[in-house]
């Protein structure tokens, strides 16, 4: 079984749009939406939820006001500024580390479990899908990503699937690291802008750091062809395969409004054709059985 993660560094370069098309083209891949704090893939694939799991990612300190003497030791030791001046726990800042409970001289602090989100296993017309929703503002998105990936793996094993396609989140921090560890390849989707180039370089460094083979896709390449060429040259020098160059076309937004992957919404469009070509390149590079 192979695992491919679509990532980007910079947000809004087209990760989810491409992932949805790959879902159609791959036929029977398991999909994993690992952008758990702003998941969008479901709006194109319309999953039907089969199972919902509570995600208990972290703990929360709770102070028993009857026992608390307001000595302030906990406030002094908390490195996350999560205890207020009047000795209350700020639930947003609290990491649930438990230091306050250790230092409290009167045992007034306990740690309680909190539900930080939900993970889902779903069925789509393109295959099974693992996804999740982190509660707004919660921490520990990395742990929830790991749970989504575990669910995807279980689904792929059960279905004897040979591919998991992972839609990652922007950035290079905790949730992205959790989305790329142990995968077979990372597809970095970039755009020919100064920000796109800068963030592509950092995303490629991240993949190298974790020894993940990279592919690059230049999306909306005709917005600035000079920059697009720079990206292609840079990739050639670094011996990184550019698997696709997708033109800008407002029809992509139209497909999104219609809630459909572009290869279904406008299969004859230039974007759809180039996406198909790119998918074939990925399939052969990953040595996948089907296409």
């Amino acid at each position, binding site marked *: 079984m192979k695992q491919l993660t679509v990532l*980007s*560094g*910079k*947000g*809004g*370069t087209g990760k*989810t749009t491409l992932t949805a098309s790959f879902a159609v083209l791959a036929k029977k891949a398991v999909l994993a939406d690992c952008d758990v*704090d*702003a998941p*969008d893939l479901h*709006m194109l694939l319309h999953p039907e939820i089969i199972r919902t799991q509570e995600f208990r990612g*972290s*703990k929360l300190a709770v102070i028993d006001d009857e026992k608390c003497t307001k000595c302030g030791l906990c406030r002094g*030791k908390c*490195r996350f500024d999560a205890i207020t001046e009047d000795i209350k726990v700020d639930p*947003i800042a609290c*990491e*649930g*580390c*438990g*230091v306050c409970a*250790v*230092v409290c001289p009167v045992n007034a602090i306990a740690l309680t479990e909190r539900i930080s989100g939900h993970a889902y296993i779903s069925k789509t017309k393109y295959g099974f899908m693992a996804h999740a929703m*982190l509660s*707004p*503002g*919660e*921490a*520990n*998105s*990395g742990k929830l990503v790991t749970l989504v990936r575990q669910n995807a793996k279980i689904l792929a094993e059960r279905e004897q699937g040979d591919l998991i396609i992972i839609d990652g*989140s*922007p*950035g*290079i*921090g*905790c*949730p*992205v*690291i959790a989305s790329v560890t142990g995968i077979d390849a990372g597809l970095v989707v970039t755009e*020919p*802008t*100064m*920000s*796109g180039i*800068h*963030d592509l370089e*950092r995303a490629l*460094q*991240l993949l190298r*750091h*974790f020894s993940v083979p990279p592919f690059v896709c230049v999306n909306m390449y005709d*917005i*600035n062809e000079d*920059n697009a060429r720079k990206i292609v040259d840079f990739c050639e020098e670094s011996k990184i395969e550019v698997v696709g160059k997708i033109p800008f076309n*407002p029809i992509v*937004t139209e497909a*999104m*409004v219609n*809630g459909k992957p572009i290869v279904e919404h406008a299969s004859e469009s230039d974007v759809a054709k180039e996406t198909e070509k790119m998918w074939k390149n990925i399939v052969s590079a990953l040595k996948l059985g089907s296409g």
Partner: protein
Amino acid sequence: MIVSIASGKGGTGKTSVAVNMALSIGNVQLLDCDVEEPNVHLFLHPDINRVEPVSILVPVVNEELCDHCGKCAEFCRCNAIFVSSERVLIFAELCHSCGGCVLVCPRKVITEEKHRIGTLKSGSAGDLELVYGELEIGEPMPIPVIKEVKRQIKKDRNVVLDSPPGTSCPVIETVKGSDFCILVTEPTPFGLHDLKIMVQVLDGMRTPFGIVVNRAGIGDKKVYEYCREKNIPILLEIPYQRKIAELYSRGVPFSLEMPEWKEKFQTLFNEIRELVSK
């Protein structure tokens, strides 16, 4: 006044709004809190005059005195410590630096040392003061770097904070303490979906906010319907224009080439000031 700029969905134009607004008002300190992928400096070409490492404290065990009781590993919720009968392994990149292991060690053989996770850079571009952070590649935790960037805030200035995308802890850390938050969205289903999550986050934080619609004209009208229903002010619309997109791609703030926008961003800022003082 501190104004942060967030979005939920990535790539909606946070950095563009932050940079163009900062260039249109005076007495500005612009802080790029997207430490995973900082981009503000690409548009401003600042003279950097200070570069400092950002570190967190991670545990070091004096193995000669350690009796491998395992209390530290038992306490650690990040699974950053592994204790076998002969050895202690510390995984610095998993450590959240709570300091708990030092407190629970019965023999007091754990101390802490600095572990570098990022870089703080400060400088200026004309009258504008710029501060940004850069998370080291492979380090998972942006929060301490964001905190370091925000420690540079000068309250007597017009402070503009550019937030990372998403709706989780790095965004909260950025927006916390702001007088106002601008949510930049695009009129598409993805833009609206992630905007709604951000609205929940800001309601929970009791931070006042308003919307900037970027790439107006694409997609559909549902963002507008949602804002009307929820009584959320739309402060500015930036139309989808090839010229704006092209300037952005070259790293040029569009208000420099299209001066009529300077005034619009000034109006935006003044409107926010009025909303905050209410």
